[in-house]
């Protein structure tokens, strides 16, 4: 197990390096001079050159990258051009809110997805199977930003039951575990849960169906084991794969919630990202993407390690 862990971590390092290179290059592919956003229009050529030197923009790209990554390791991700605050502080504050939303969506989606998928796999080729399959293909096909708007129309505009935007009463930015805040969480979390419900139920259906048709299931029944005990064996066999799919989905929820955060004005990383894009705040854009991508990489690593811990067969590959 330890050697697997070390091997897996060593494999992550080049990927993390690649991710940092892409995030660094994002600013380079942006059209226009990065200085135009911070320099007054009437700045002289010398002033521009001085500024360029101050930001290290006169150095060749690899040197700029080395400086950038060196600062990064000291926790310095630069300053936001729009607010002047350190990028790291802005990003971590927002990621906390996104994480709350993503985990809430996962708490809704995973049990429902597992239950539906197992039901469909167990009752293969019956009306239950067809109903679940139809539901899951609808779930993966729906543009969730549109679904969010539809839910707002139903529950906020027509019924007036739930608030349509923000993370708390009166535009509150900080979270608290009370009903006033929970009401704000409900619609975005449910909206975000729909796609993973479709994907998880689809995966579990295929898994359960495959495992139930294997010989060992018949053998367990033949030796007189009860249905519940057999199903426990089936669940153990499906656990590793199902967990890895769910881990990936949690990562997607965090990285993919930007559209939903925009619909509901949820003060998370996606919301920060869209603000950064419109204010051409490139350091903030770069920092947010880097943190979210590294989160996703870490998530993948954890999933792989947990999967290997559950299913020792994986360690050998």
């Amino acid at each position: 197990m330890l050697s697997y862990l070390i091997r897996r971590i060593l494999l992550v390092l080049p990927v993390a390096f690649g991710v940092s290179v892409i995030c660094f290059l994002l600013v380079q592919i942006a059209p226009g001079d990065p200085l135009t956003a911070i320099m007054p229009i009437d700045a002289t050529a010398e002033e521009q050159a001085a500024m360029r030197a101050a930001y290290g923009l006169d150095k060749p790209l690899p040197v700029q990258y080395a400086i950038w990554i060196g600062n990064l390791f000291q926790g310095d991700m630069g300053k936001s051009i729009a607010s002047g605050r350190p990028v790291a502080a802005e990003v971590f504050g927002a990621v906390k809110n996104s994480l709350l939303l993503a985990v809430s969506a996962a708490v809704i989606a995973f049990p429902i997805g597992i239950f539906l998928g197992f039901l469909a796999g167990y009752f293969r080729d019956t009306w239950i199977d067809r109903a679940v399959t139809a539901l899951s293909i609808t779930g993966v096909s729906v543009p969730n930003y549109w679904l969010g708007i539809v839910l707002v129309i139903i529950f906020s505009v027509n019924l007036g039951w739930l608030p349509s935007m923000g993370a708390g009463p009166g535009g509150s930015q900080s979270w608290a575990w009370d009903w006033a805040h929970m009401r704000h969480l409900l619609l975005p979390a449910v909206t975000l849960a729909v796609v993973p419900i479709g994907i998880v139920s689809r995966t579990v259906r295929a898994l359960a169906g495959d495992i139930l048709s294997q010989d060992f299931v018949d053998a367990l029944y033949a030796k007189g084991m009860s249905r519940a005990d057999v199903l426990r064996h089936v669940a153990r066999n499906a656990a590793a794969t199902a967990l890895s799919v769910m881990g990936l989905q949690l990562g997607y929820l965090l990285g993919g919630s930007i559209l939903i955060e925009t619909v509901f004005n949820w003060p998370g990383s996606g919301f920060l990202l869209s603000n950064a894009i419109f204010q051409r705040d490139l350091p903030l854009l770069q920092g947010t993407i880097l943190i979210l991508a590294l989160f996703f990489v870490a998530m993948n690593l954890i999933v792989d390690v947990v999967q290997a811990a559950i299913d020792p067969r994986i360690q050998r590959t």
Partner: protein
Amino acid sequence: MAMAEATSIHAPEKVEKSKGYWSGVGHRLVRDPLTMFCLAVIAALILSAVFAPYLGLADPYKGSMIARLKPIGAPGYPLGTDEQGRDMLARLIYGGRLTLFIGLMPVVIAFFAGSILGITAGYVGGLTNTIIMRTVDVFFAFPSVLLAIAISGALGAGIVNSLVSLTIVFIPPITRVAEAVTSGVRKLDYIDAARASGASAWTVIRVHVIGNVLSPIFVYATSLTSVCMILAAGLSFLGIGVRPPEPEWGLMLNTLRSVIYVNPWLSALPGVMIFVTSLCLNLLSDGLRSAMNVRD
């Protein structure tokens, strides 16, 4: 008596010319009503978008201050009007032009680019494989939505920028699938036989590899079209895709959000178009997968 029976069994039957793989696929597709229905819907959407100027619709760009936000079913405006008084039906049909183009084109380009990269990596192996596949791994470190938004956000709004960012998003997954099936085929005996007979690498790939790897890659690519549609419209919804005043479903969804309390269901209409298209694309891809006997 027994003799007669034996001869009749062994008598040569009329041998029909064996039908090819593709005619079998076509036959199975035609007998799958759901897939055919989805194909018809997609075809209707594409045709109505292409021939929109000849359908006698209102001008999708011409607004009217007095005819703003007419409800669905208002006389003269079958689907109402938007916040600038422009005919919704015309805008939805014209909107298909950009949405479908930006939603499908990246997968088409990525299918070719990813197939070339993946087949090369899978067939050549060695250092070439390592370079291509480790680069692909890096792109897999980004959730697709995040990557599309990051590139589009950095490049800025615009049709070409959306096409570029979505193509970059879909090349890595297609490359990965192409590499996996190609290195599977590469291990088979008939490839060794072909190589032993002195065929060049290009000949082996052209004659023996492509025919065997293209259908799984193709089916996989079709399964990405629905995601690409949703993402393409999503970029415009965020304001980093198509620019106003062009009719585009994601952009319309965005601008109509401001009138959600005035005329709620009207503002949901562009999303219905995205949903129907993406659902049909998914079902079509599932139908193709089973008709072409491709397993995951």
